[in-house]
C-alpha cells in the first residue's frame, strides 16, 4: 500500500520546514551569507548612482545563486548524513515524491532569503526593489535554481568531493536561468517599457519547464542504491 503522492510530498516538505523552524540552521546561514555578500559587493563596486542601476540586479542574482548553493548542499547533505535518505528510499512512497518534496523545501528557503534581500537592498542601495514584476522574476528564477539544484545536489552529496563539486556542476546548467533573470530584473529596475523585456520572463518560464521535466525524468537514477 503506497502513500498517495501528494501526501508524501507534503510530509517531506513539512519535515524540512519543521526541522528548519527548530534549528534555523539553513535560513540563518544562507541569510547571513547573503547579507555579507551584498555588503562586500557594495564596497567592491564603489557604486555611484548610475552604475548602481545597472549593477544591482547582478548583485542580487549572484547573491541568490550562491546562497541557494549553500542551502542545497546543507539540505541534501543532512538527508544523507543522518541516514534519512535511506529511510525515505525504504518508505512505500513514489521515489519522485522525494524529488518534489526536497524541491519544494529548497524553493521555500531560497525564496525566504530572496524576499529578505529585497527590502535590505532597497535600503542599502537606495533603490526600490519591491516591485510586483521583480517578485515574479524572483519566484521564477529561484524555481529554476531549486529544480536543477535539487537534482545535482542529490548527485554531488554522494561523491567524494561533495561541497566543492556542486557549484562547478550547477553553475553552467543554471546559467540560462541566471541570464534571463538578470536581464529581466535589470530592465525592470531601469524602468524600460514592458514590450522590450517581456521576452525574458517568457524565456525563464520555458527554461523552468524544460528543467522541471528533465529533472523529474532523471531523478530516480540518481538515488538508486
Amino acid at each position, binding site marked *: 500500500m503506497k502513500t498517495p503522492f501528494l501526501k508524501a510530498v507534503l510530509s517531506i516538505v513539512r519535515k524540512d520546514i519543521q526541522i528548519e523552524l527548530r534549528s534555523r540552521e539553513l535560513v540563518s546561514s544562507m541569510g547571513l551569507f547573503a547579507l555579507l555578500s551584498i555588503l562586500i559587493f557594495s564596497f567592491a563596486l564603489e557604486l555611484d548612482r548610475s552604475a548602481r542601476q545597472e549593477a544591482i540586479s547582478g548583485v542580487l542574482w549572484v547573491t541568490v545563486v550562491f546562497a541557494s548553493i549553500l542551502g542545497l548542499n546543507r539540505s541534501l547533505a543532512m538527508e544523507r548524513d543522518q541516514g534519512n535518505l535511506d529511510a525515505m528510499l525504504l518508505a512505500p512512497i513514489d521515489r519522485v515524491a522525494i524529488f518534489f518534496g526536497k524541491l519544494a523545501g529548497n524553493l521555500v528557503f531560497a525564496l525566504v532569503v530572496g524576499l529578505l534581500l529585497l527590502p535590505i537592498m532597497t535600503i542599502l542601495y537606495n533603490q526600490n526593489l519591491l516591485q510586483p514584476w521583480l517578485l515574479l522574476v524572483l519566484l521564477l528564477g529561484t524555481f529554476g535554481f531549486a529544480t536543477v539544484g535539487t537534482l545535482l545536489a542529490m548527485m554531488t552529496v554522494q561523491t567524494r568531493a561533495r561541497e566543492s563539486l556542486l557549484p*562547478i556542476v550547477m*553553475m553552467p546548467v543554471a546559467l540560462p536561468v541566471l541570464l534571463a533573470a538578470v536581464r529581466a530584473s535589470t530592465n525592470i529596475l531601469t524602468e524600460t517599457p514592458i514590450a522590450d523585456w517581456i521576452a525574458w520572463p517568457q524565456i525563464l518560464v520555458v527554461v523552468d519547464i524544460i528543467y522541471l521535466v528533465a529533472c523529474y525524468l532523471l531523478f530516480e537514477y540518481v538515488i538508486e542504491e
Partner: protein
Amino acid sequence: MTAVQDTPALPTQQAETGGRPRLLVALTIITPLAVLVGLYMALFNARTDIDQGDVQRIFYIHMPAFIGAFVALGGTVIGGIQYLRTRQVKWDTLALAGVEVGIALALVNLITGMVWARPIWNTWWTWDPRLTSEAIMVLTYAAYIMLRQGIENPEQRRRFAAVYGILAFITVIITLVITRIRPDTIHPVVIGPSVQTDMAQGAFEVAATSGVRAALMVNMPVWAILVPITLMWYRIRLENFNQRIQALKMKVLS
C-alpha cells in the same frame, strides 16, 4: 562482481591490422584525405565572396564543426539513455568519447568563429546570445569531466555521468535554436528559416557565388560524420584498452 568479468575480450582475428577492425583502418585513411579534399573545395574551388572576401571561407569549417560537435554530443545522450536502460559499460564509454570529441569540435567552431568575427564584426568576442550560449555549452561539458573525476565508485560514476550528459544536452539545443528564436542576435543564419531582419552582420547567399554549395556539400559530411566518428572510435578503443589494463592489473595483484 569483479572488474575482470567486465573485461572486453580482444578479438584475435584483427592481429594483421594492428588490432584494429578493417572499417576503422579504412576510416583512418579516408578521414584525413576527406578533410584535405574539403579544404581544397573550400580554399581553391569555391569562388571568393563578393562582400567578405577570403575570410568567408572559414564558414566551410565553422558550421560543419558545430554539426560535428552536435553529433558527438548526441552520441553522449544516446550513450547515457542506453546506459541507464541496459547498464552496459560500453554505452558509458560512448558517452565519454562523445563529450571529449564534442568539446574539441565545439572549440574548433568557437575559434574559427572568433577568427572570422575579428574582421567582420571588428571584435574577437561579443556577448551575443549565440556566442554566450555556446560558451556555456563548452563549460557545461567541462563540468561533466570534473564530475566524472570526482566520483570513485565506477558504477556510480557511470550512472551520474549519464544523467548529467543527458541534462547538459539542453545547452546544445539552446545554442542550436537561439538564433532562430531571438531576433536580437548579430550571428547570421545562412541555412534554413530565421526570424532575422537586419541585425545579423555577415550573412551571405549560398546561391550567389559559384562553388559555395559544392564546398558545403563536401565539408558537411566530412566534419559532421567522418571526423567525429573516427575520433570517437579511437577514443572508445583507448578507453577499452585502459579498462583492460586496469582489469589485468587487478588480476595480477590478487
